[in-house]
């Protein structure tokens, strides 16, 4: 009975009711062909896996999700099929249909930990949904819908009246840890929620954005008023035990995701941009002291506050950040995500 509604939902989805971004259907691709070629040459293995070259050349569900998303935005069905084939056959192994989070070239078997990572699952499902629409490939929508249902069931829970995203199916809830639930603010990939909400019947998708923003507003803390990578929501938000109390490589994606989703909340975004900016670039920092830890000069990091300034105040993006030259997997990925947003919304940022 409950299934009977689904074809209608999907039909609506395919008819283009999606209000959201990453619409490369008409016009040039959102990721420039040359940039995508450069990215692939460095981070995409012929087998279809995206290589995290700063982490022992492992792959993970997040990287595969980014690869799929970039392939859609680059308009490359062959690359999408390649990355998807690897992702499905090597990572989508869990009983619940979500992805094992880590693939290690140096172990046999390559996947030894069945745990998932919700941001990777969100990115994979989201990219499948976009691909289904882009290439009229309903089989992708089917898988995306099922993943979205499962994420809503196992990765989303209610805490203090708000829906929150748990970082994985196990290990982070109030039952699993004394300071639980523990969340990662950068796992709120806002642009995915409405798209997956159209595929999944779960009402959670309609509420995640609003509740997520509310949690973000509460999670800015310390002298720099920045969110920690890992936040305990046991009582008032605070850095989770067992993790560095740090605005780190996770959390610095938060403003990027907000801008990409079109959530131009000035107070939040301006605060992030100010808090993460230091002389010469962007910095990770200690939440309690505000002390910078790593100063990051890679364009992939520097483009984040620049994107915020541009989206809020039409401040032009510096030329050197518009040029893409692959460096390491993570910042290079972030830079392409930022550049594709600029390509999609020229009106935001002349």
């Amino acid at each position, binding site marked *: 009975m409950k*299934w009977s509604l689904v074809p209608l939902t999907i039909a609506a989805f395919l008819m283009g009711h999606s209000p959201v971004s990453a619409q490369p259907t008409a016009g040039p691709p959102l990721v420039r062909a040359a940039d995508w070629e450069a990215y692939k040459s460095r981070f995409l293995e012929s087998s279809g896996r995206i290589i995290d070259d700063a982490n022992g050349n492992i792959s993970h569900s997040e990287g595969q999700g980014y690869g799929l998303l970039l392939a859609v935005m680059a308009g490359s069905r062959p690359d999408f099929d390649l990355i998807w084939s690897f992702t*499905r056959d090597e990572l989508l*192994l869990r009983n619940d249909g979500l992805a094992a989070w880590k693939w290690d070239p140096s172990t046999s078997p390559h996947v*030894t930990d069945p745990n998932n990572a919700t941001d990777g699952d969100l990115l994979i499902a989201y990219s499948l949904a976009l691909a289904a629409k882009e290439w009229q490939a309903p*089989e992708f929508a089917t898988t995306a819908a099922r993943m979205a249902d499962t994420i809503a069931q196992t990765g989303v829970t209610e805490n203090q009246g708000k829906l929150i995203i748990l970082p994985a199916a196990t290990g982070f809830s109030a039952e699993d840890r004394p300071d639980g639930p523990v969340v990662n603010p950068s796992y709120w990939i806002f642009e995915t929620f409405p798209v997956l909400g159209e595929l999944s019947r779960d009402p959670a998708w309609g509420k995640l954005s609003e509740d997520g923003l509310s949690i973000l507003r509460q999670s800015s803390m310390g002298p720099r008023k920045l969110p920690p990578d890992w936040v305990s929501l046991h009582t008032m938000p605070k850095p989770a035990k067992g993790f560095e109390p740090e605005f780190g490589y996770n959390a610095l994606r938060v403003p990027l995701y907000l801008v990409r989703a079109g959530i131009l909340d000035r107070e939040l975004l301006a605060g992030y941009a100010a808090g993460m900016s230091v002389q010469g670039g962007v910095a990770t920092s200690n939440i309690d002291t505000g002390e910078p830890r790593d100063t990051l000069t890679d364009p992939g990091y520097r483009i984040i506050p620049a994107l915020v300034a541009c989206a809020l105040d039409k401040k032009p993006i510096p030329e050197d950040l518009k040029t893409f030259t692959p460096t390491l997997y993570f910042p290079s990925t972030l830079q392409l995500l930022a550049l594709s947003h600029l390509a999609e919304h020229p009106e935001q940022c002349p």
Partner: protein
Amino acid sequence: MRVPSIIWLVAGAAVVGYFGLRDNKTADGFFQSRATREAAGTSQPGTTDRSSQSGTQTAQLSPSAGTGGQTVPAAPPATVNATPSPQAPAPAPSTAATGQAPAVDETALRYFARRGDSKRLEAEIARLRTLYPDWTPPSDPSAVVPLGDVKLDDMWQLYSENRYAEVRKAIADRVAAEPAWRPPQDLLDRLTIAEARDRLVNASNLKQSEMVIRIAANTPSLLTCSEVDVLWRVAEAFAVTDRTGRARDAFLYILKNCTDQAERLATVEKAIPVLSRDEIADLLATERIGPDGKGEFEAAKIDLARRSVAAAGEDPKVTVPPSDVGAVEAVADKDGQASDAILLGWYYLGRDNPTAAEKWFRKARGVKDTAEVSQGLALALVGLGRYAEAEDVLFPWNDSSDEARKVYLAAVANLLGGDPPAMIEPAMLQRMAPVVGKARDAAAAQQFGWYARALNQHRTAGQWFTAALSWKPDDEPSAYGLALTRLQLKDAAGVAEIQRLWAGRSERIATLGEIRRDRQRPGTLPAPPAQAGAASPIAERQTYGDTAEAPARVIEASEQVRPAQGSGSGSAKGDRLQRNRSCKTTQAYSNLGGSASLARGWCLMEMKRPLEAIKAFENAMERGDATVQRDAAYGQSLAYLRVGLSNDAAVAAAKAPQDRKRTLELDEALLSRRASDFFGAGRYAEAILALDQRARIAPERIDLMAMRGYAYLNLRRKEDARRIFRAIAATGDREGLRGLKAVDPPKDNN
């Protein structure tokens, strides 16, 4: 989690029909319309209509042709020289895709011919022949005209190198470049199956059994004899998700349809750990007899017999078909492998057959002497009452493991504890002593003490009892032994000290009086290690070796030979230690019947070894008939009382209905014990309550009257106390006068 409710294994690839790429996706759920699904799902014979599955991913695989018989299993190796080909699963080309009469697709044939891949070529010819009976293969396959399609050639190349994701990319690349081009259905089908195979294996390696089953259900053409490994993984996935019936079906499918000898045997061997014996029997029924008259599963059957004998060796309650034991014995006799002999040794030890156990352990020991073998042999010898031999066998290994040391110490304690005392060679005694010392084994030390007493070596006996107490300060028998020894040595102060320390805890120590004349025996006993001096004050902690840890926990094996623990209210006065029997001590490894256990329990009670008696009575209750159970419950209750566990005693007494006389007796004993416990704990009011209750069913004994008196005194009910002690004094018992003095202490000048 949604799981296919039914999975039938498919017999042959050719009957599977169209489960290609499109179907793989529809299996995900709800996208494809019902009409499309039906068109896809029913276009080939043997395919189950999946349209009734309400659009979820539930899928039924085709019924087994191997059992159903409607369709002919066509998959290699059944039809191809019995050579399994990894690429064999070969769904028929879809007619639904084109709507035209099927044309023989020779793409793969040509490709394999060109590459000189004769194995795959043969498999492909066989496959096409099955699909198209009228088709004639090229007379010279290697002369088949080369493909003109280089790009497709490259795709097959990638496919044959298992680079499936890259095939996907190549297909999409070509579709993008040549919009009119469509990949051959054959390639898509094979690709889908190959990808599913990879994913299934990966999920299986990650122990994601539901996913394994789901993939198998969605890709039935994967389940063929040429993919036995996949079938095994699916079967194991069923087994670990508690669907052993399905697992059995999967294993059985292999045995009914697949011919490879080694794989068939491996199938049975893989099934043995996960299926029940009955389910395994179904598999064994498919055994084929070879030209040499031997069954193909002989090795697996021996393995099965070994397992059951091994399981029985670990758990005496497990029953084993005699044929299993016979099979292992036969192979052990024939091959002479020590491992088989050891299995049998443990088995017989667990069946209370130490004679047979000795035989097999000796046989194994003849091949190679190891700690395990010697340990088993020693246990068998202990079971046979040949303690000296047991000690001798295990002495070289006593340090090899905790387990070996336990058994060794059990042998030592039994050897020392014989009655009449065994004649033990001085050399043997000398080597036993340091082991006992090093192990800080109170039970064996205590036996050394009794042995020394029996030999009239009282000073040595005192040292051993002292050592035992230092390792186990609450070891009442050792304290009693020490008190006896001091009495013997006319150390009145020493006796008084023990009596003071054990006041309220041991009646027999408190009332130690008459002395039994010990037997005289020649020989000199070793003193306990590091205790050469005279008997030291009791309960003084001694450390041995280089550690200073607490006395070792009393070990199970030696616990079985520990004599009387504590004293019940009915304990006799004086030295009446009865050691006229040994109550054979292979309990942990024995499988005594109910009556035998009951007899052993009483024997142990007589030996003042109530802790062991509790276990023996327990065993009797488990195995015996109603009469035995009643007696055993009674005995166990008494045994608990003897060690001072009155609550457990009450529980035990309730385990079987007793007659009125016994009920009264037990109640009386229980209440005495409780009164004593309360008194000892300083809970005087409750002690008096218990005494009152007891007084309703039995006259109050003098000792209990005294307890009552002191309880009153402690409650400052002096008048009551005085009354009681006067009554005691009137009987002539000096406890009365002592009590009266306690109530009204004589005034002195201090």
